[in-house]
């Protein structure tokens, strides 16, 4: 099995559970306007699988099967990360152009 960072299974499960609550809590007050960009942004964040691909490829040594799997994984993961963040940025760029809130106060 890969490299152990002195992290027990139990510790990983603790982190898993805490991350579930964090994920729910952090976005629970999101307005509907931002649902699409948020989904896209979250999509970019799970591109973290990219680093798994890098590890597989990086630690493959000369093993052809692992090299091939890792190589494909890194390409796909990069697509997910780059595409995800760029597309989210494009969506959010448009929200910036909106006028001041003064208009709402007048009504």
């Amino acid at each position, binding site marked *: 099995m890969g490299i152990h960072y002195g992290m027990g299974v139990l510790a990983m499960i603790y982190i898993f559970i805490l991350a579930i609550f964090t994920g729910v809590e952090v976005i629970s007050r999101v307005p509907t306007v931002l649902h*699409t960009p948020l989904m896209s942004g979250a999509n970019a964040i799970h591109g973290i699988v990219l680093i798994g691909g890098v590890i597989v490829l990086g630690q493959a*040594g000369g093993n052809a099967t692992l090299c091939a799997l890792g190589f494909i994984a890194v390409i796909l993961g990069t697509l997910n990360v780059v595409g995800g963040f760029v597309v*989210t940025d494009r969506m959010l760029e448009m929200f910036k152009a909106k006028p001041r809130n003064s208009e709402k106060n007048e009504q």
Partner: protein
Amino acid sequence: MSSDFVAQAAYLIASFLFILGLKRLSTPRTARSGNIVAAIGMALALGGTFVLPGMGNFGLILVAIAIGTAPGWLLAKRVKMTAMPQMVSLFNGMGGACAMFISLGEWFRPIAQFSLTVPGLGTWTPQVFAPRSVGDCIPTLLGVVFGAVSFTGSLVAFGKLQGLITEKPVRYPQQKLINALLVALIVAAGWIAVYHQNFSIWIIIVALSALALGVLQVLPIGGADMPVVISVLNSCTGLAAAVTGFSMQNMAMIIAGTLVGAAGSLLTLLMCKAMNRSLLKVVFGSFGSVAGPGGIATTDQSMREIAASECAIMMGYARKVIIIPGYGLAVGQGQHLVHELEELLEKRGVEVKYAIHPVAGRMPGHMNVLLAEADVPYPKLLDMEEINPEFDQADVALIVGANDVVNPAARTDPGSPIYGMPILNADKAKNVIVIKRGRGAGFAGIENGLFYDPKTRMLFGDAKKALQELVSEVKAL
């Protein structure tokens, strides 16, 4: 040890940045910076990975990253805002495939390697597969399954929204039985794979069955439910990333993957709530199959057509107009025209507001993105709860390319498949004008009684052309 420490520190900071980024993404003012914060976290996590102990093949890694960056960047920069949902789905599928390949790589990774040097003959390095414990196998297997389902499921969702595959639910006999058998096959093959780790055929069977399951599970779901499907698959990939993190004991992957899995699930539930659909019904049933006979018996009545010039008069002399944009507006690229129309009317002293249904467009918030692109002022976009009480005072409700979200059957007809779904009360306005491409039923295939209402007038035509006519007629008033 110290390089390991550097990598772990990078992961720690990256995890913090992911949480901060998500947090900032959920407020309009900070959203863009939130995305950038998360991207910095990703760069940091990637950098940390390079200094992990035992890393090599750096040339190959950089080449693969370069190959992935170019199309990712181009696709993201070129895609039209209307095609955004399928693009998210496509990138999501790539992430799922990545998780599947990593988990397969993890499965095939030799556990112990040793070298045998025979003098005169060279070095021999056999790859020994020491059996893993069941506990070590489970996250790897789950990574393969979640990743594969996410991969093919997202590709089918992409195909449906892109128009490559029919948007109608694809039905085939015994689909539930076939899916159940596939799940059983995955479990059985996975079980055997754990105990026969030397035979790679079993893990391949697991992967292939999961790939097939992704296709067969999404094919029978109609286009109207695709936003929910994309959201489900998004959290599925998050989960795949998390379990892969478990099998690789990688903190950053566990945290980022779980965050997305949890946030994605909440988003899915919010979407289902807006559509009054249970998640189970979306995944196991579909709109299309109940369409037609379940609708109200209004087909014998006729729709009343109207000319653009008359519409212009109705709106130009109204006091208050509420515009209800739907996906048809986006498809016809009419967002800029609708904004022009709104400005013309405002100049004439007409109060104009937009009513945004939570699922207008194809994903929650999609319509807001499209209208923001056309520079429609943000305060003019009102949520369903805010705008519904105002319809009574509206002289005209202008419906552009929306259908199911204004269908009164959702309030009145318990037999309708959309009964109970919260809708925009366009039928409460004094007059209703509907811009619609044809006479057919909506995206979900359900008849809409509002179109036959005596106070409703139909302006048939492509959204862009109809709006163009309206704009020039209003100018001429």
